[in-house]
């Protein structure tokens, strides 16, 4: 199998885990941190995620490099919220930043695996193939969107926009200009991709089978139960 998986995780560890515990981790961690506003609770969830990465054999430097831009964005959001909301907003800013960190780290764990395995897992979880395929296609497009954002940023500068000379307000307004072509491009690409897929016979046949089936081992079952339970337990410990 090939796919969009990373190659910095040793065989075994996170790579050998079935995709379903990882999907459960993603869903339960993000749901738990959205339901709670308690900082120690969210910090606890964050610790579980970091431990999962470390114990799972992920190269933390590579993971940090991959999410560096998002970490900077989270830090910037924290600072901006603190500036505009003052000390009252500090707690809110901390909760928001921790929640975002949880989502980013959960996604980083999700990336430690073969993309096509997630498609199989989603189909085996009875999600309609069309929907599961759309999710996987969307994941494949994420790096392309990132590259496009970088390209557009370069072309804006080549047309004379000097980001370094702008004040914070003007800089934020200029950065928001990046969203328009990225969003328009993403919508157009989604539309064109769907037409191209239909024209190549996608959904032409009533069903689709796969030679390979994923099977959950004991560890996978335990992990699938472990993550939601530990996040709920952390809630009981910290939220009183």
């Amino acid at each position, binding site marked *: 199998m*090939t796919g969009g998986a990373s*190659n910095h995780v040793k065989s075994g560890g996170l790579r050998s885990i079935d995709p379903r515990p990882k999907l459960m981790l993603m869903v339960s961690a993000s749901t738990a941190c959205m339901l709670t506003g308690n900082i120690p609770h969210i910090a606890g969830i964050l610790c579980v995620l970091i431990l999962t990465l470390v114990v799972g054999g992920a190269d933390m430097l590579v993971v940090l490099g991959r999410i560096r831009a998002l970490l900077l964005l989270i830090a910037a959001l924290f600072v901006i919220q603190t500036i505009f909301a003052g000390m009252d907003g500090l707690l809110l800013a901390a909760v928001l930043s921790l929640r975002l960190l949880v989502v980013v780290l959960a996604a980083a764990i999700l990336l430690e695996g073969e993309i096509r395995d997630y498609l199989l897992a989603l189909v085996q979880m009875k999600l309609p193939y069309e929907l599961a395929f759309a999710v996987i296609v969307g994941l494949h497009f994420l790096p392309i969107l990132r590259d*496009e954002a970088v*390209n*557009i940023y*370069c*072309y*804006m*500068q*080549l*047309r*004379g*926009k*000097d*980001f*370094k*000379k702008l004040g914070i307000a003007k800089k934020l307004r200029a950065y928001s*200009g*990046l969203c*328009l*072509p990225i969003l*328009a*491009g993403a919508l*157009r690409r989604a539309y064109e991709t769907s037409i191209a897929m239909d024209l190549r016979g996608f959904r032409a046949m009533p069903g689709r089978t796969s030679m390979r089936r994923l099977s959950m081992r004991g560890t996978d079952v335990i992990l699938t139960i472990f993550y939601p339970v530990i996040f709920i337990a952390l809630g009981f410990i910290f939220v009183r």
Partner: protein
Amino acid sequence: MALEVKNLTFSYARNPSRKRRDFSPVFAVNDFSAVFERGKITAVMGPNGCGKTTLSKLLVGILKPLRGGVFLDGENLSGRRLAEIGKQIGLVAQQPDRQLFCTSVSDEMEFGLKCLELDSAEIEARKARYLEYFDLERYAETFPFELSTGEKQRLVIAAVIAMKPAYLILDEPTSALDRGRKAALGALLRGLASDEHTGVVLFSHDESFTARYADGVIKMEEGQTG
């Protein structure tokens, strides 16, 4: 006065056509040297994947070379900000969608001109001139993403040319243009080269277009001069 490229070498981190664990460098541009003079149209031609687009990005500083450098009128461009380079070297890249970032054709034309801090009369004059030349006047208030591919390509070319850079780099500028519009673009480029002394670098597959309008041709093969 020229845009000079000396021993330019660039490699992407990994060759996507190779195996996942193969990290050996593959040079997209390898020890490439050339001189693009002002007042002349120089075409760079070569097969798909020979490094033309990479070279165009290296020329304006979007990509940083591993070795060698780009010299604008004798001055090394390394370390200069893109916004500074863009005022002297205009780039019309291959995909017009990625170079449109405003909500109307009119705003798109004004974007670069305002960044040059021109007065409003000059901005209006240049905008009107190039919108008319590229037959885009009637779309002035249109959202650029609603235009056809050819119209988007013309809009990007118009927006970059309106900035009157000393050098103009065009990557496959005729790919979405019909014969009449190719001729109009060719005539404009000739005019820019002869009247405004603009150095034009044309990356193209279009042999008839380059044969008709280019003063010189550089062949490129596997990242090197062929």
